[in-house]
């Protein structure tokens, strides 16, 4: 096994190398590049991993891509240009922030839609409920039960024309 050989090799050389001390070099030449690299790769999918960003992954592909993106940053490309390049090469799948287009409209619009529907549904329910109870208060208990059944039939939550109040 190759690894075993490497491990032994390493052990042999370990003592010799631990003497010279200096400040560690970042993988990129300057911190600004590094910052941009993290921001870009933090939203991109590592295509060979289970579910990891390129920033987080240690897979070979991710290491290579990080090196490439670093190079592109240093050669003056903008973030958008870099991302466009990757999308052209790998498709939308590489983006953890899916682009807004026809097939993702409901994905991006859905939560807002749910929210609005939820709030309006809630308001509608509260108002209707109070009206039902107000109607019920004036009557005797037996009448109340009857009225509740009537009202439930008359005004279901989603109006249903096939339902008529029991006669």
């Amino acid at each position, binding site marked *: 096994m190759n*690894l*075993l050989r*490497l*491990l032994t*090799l*390493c*052990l*042999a*050389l*370990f003592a010799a*190398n*631990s*003497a*010279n*001390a*200096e*400040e*560690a*070099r*970042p*993988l990129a030449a300057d911190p600004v590049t*590094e910052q941009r690299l*993290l921001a870009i790769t933090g*939203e991109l*999918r590592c295509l060979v991993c*289970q*579910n*990891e*960003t390129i*920033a*987080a*992954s*240690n897979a070979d592909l991710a*290491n290579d891509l990080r090196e490439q993106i670093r190079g592109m940053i240093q050669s003056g490309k903008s973030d958008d240009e870099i991302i466009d390049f990757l999308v052209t090469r790998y498709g*939308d*799948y*590489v*983006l*953890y*922030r*899916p682009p807004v287009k026809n*097939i*993702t409209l*409901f*994905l991006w619009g*859905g*939560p807002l839609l*749910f*929210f609005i529907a*939820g709030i309006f549904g*809630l308001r509608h329910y*509260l108002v209707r409920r*109070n009206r*039902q*109870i*107000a109607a*019920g208060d004036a009557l005797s208990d037996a009448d109340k*039960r009857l009225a*509740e059944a009537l009202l439930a*039939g008359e005004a279901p939550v989603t109006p249903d024309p096939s339902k008529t109040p029991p006669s």
Partner: protein
Amino acid sequence: MTPELGHFALILALLVAASTGVLALWGAQKNRAPWIALAKPGALALALLVTFSYLCLTWAFTQNDFSVRYVAEQSNSLLPLVYRVAGVWGGHEGSLLLWLLMLTWWTLLVRLFSRALPETMRARVIGVLCLVAAGFLLFILCTSNPFLRLLPGVPEGRDLNPMLQDPGLVIHPPLLYMGYVGFSVAYAFAVAALMSGKLDAAWARWSRPWTMAAWVFLTLGIAMGSWWAYYELGWGGWWFWDPVENASFMPWLAGTALIHSLAVTEKRGGFKNWTVLLAVSTFSLSLLGTFLVRSGVLTSVHAFASDPSRGIFILAFLVVVIGASLALFVWRAPKVGLGGRFGLFSRESLLLTNNVLLVVATGTVLLGTLYPLIIDALAVGKISVGPPYFNAVFVPIMTPLLFLIGVGPFARWKQASIPEIARLLKWALAVAIIVAIALPFAYGDWTPFVGLGIFAAVWIVLTALLHLIRQARATQGSGSFIASILKQPRHFWGMHLAHIGVAVFVAGVTIVGGYEEEKDVKMAPGDSVSVAGNTFRFLGVRQVKGPNYLAWQGDVELSKNDRFQRRLLPEKRIYHSSAMPMTEAAIDAGILRDVYVSLGEPIDRAHPETEWAMRVYYKPLVDWIWGGCILMALGGLIAMLDRRYRIRRNNPKAVS
């Protein structure tokens, strides 16, 4: 022989579960005492049979019986004993058996701790649980039998997935499953109540402690999984909105809505239909989670399509569970009364708002989780939905919810007054705003995200304290103030503790999200790097041999202001059975910050002794994330132990 006994016990269990379920439910409906009486021994027999079967599988693991296919796939003779025992739930078949085991234990617990329940109600609850168990037994026996033999046997097993060989992953699945499966009890209570046509306050009171217990387990299970991801995966994240994580988060969100809605149903008799629907949805989401994780649909829609038997079965089961309960609901629900009257601004309406927001959040997570699968299945494209999406849509929904946590407890039942609450809370609001503006500067720059998070956290804590003081004053009488604080009922303490847990959690998420620092560096032995005043000096790597792996162990000296703190030993492990290297990060944990170092790859693979890619992180308040979860769970536990649940139990007459 032992595996065959386990297999046989499962078959017997299926017969017991199906017959107990059907007879108990039918007996309760027709009021036949002998059939109703079957529920209790049935639940016991089921639990014993499944436990026996589970032990048989564990035995096969501990004995390294590699003639059992599942054992050969999941274990190895070099695997330490604890991982062989935990290896039972390392794969699909065993996980399901664990699921089933938990279900039968919950059923047994219902049987033991429900003396206050009327005989027919108990029979119904146990009957429903038995039918659910029968469904799972059928699933296991038809598609996922862990006892199948591999003939001829193999001399050595393949080994447990190295990722699972960790104490965190030993505890995580059982906790999570206790939560998932626990919601089946809430579901069974709801269905039983629908069958009897009596959805009353007593029903809500019975289900509350059970639902809370499930929620506590689920909270701890999710927190455990998140913590594991943090220290094991080596990228320092604590939540990735991975579909597997979402699968457990959705029932949590729905379950959180359910425990709040049950409060209204118990105290005020309102929202009964809503509560029933939530109980059904929460359990359905637990099943959906099982489906997503277990059917293979997440890894690839196409892999799923080529071997769909498991997926189809769970899907069919899901359809039956949801369909049958909804049909029952449509049939029974209109007979249920409306409950007490309340104003548009009241404790009830605020709790309902909480529910709507939580359900919208659940829907959003569901949408984001299923969307890429649907897009892929329809062959219209291939997209990824990840953290940037979820953070963008989730935070706006959660923000009003966090604000309402502060307001809710001050709102009176029936009718609350906005001016009164505004008067009570104006100082808390002012202080929270001031802290939210000022505190971030202690860490660095002020950003809206951090400001909002700090505001929410401080607001929740202040309002909780204010409410505690106010409540203590109101009930003080002639005694001392401190005594009055201590005398507050447990559900009250539980609520505030859980809410403060949310605040602690939010503070952790906010500060670590806003101010964590990360450096990706090349280090040769002797080099050092600093983040946020913490200096890491790399001394080199050495070889370490584990029971079934070989590792590079980095030796890193952590110091602060030139003072030595401690040694950190991150590892890169290669398990004998897997080519994929595993990262073991080294963490110096603290209340105010973690510093975290993980080994990447050697820069030059031919000379690994020279330079390594390493990641070092400074993570302020990151432990508050899990601390908050523990507080939430603790709050739930205390609320669950509230005296009134026990008084009712000892005094059956009080339950009408």
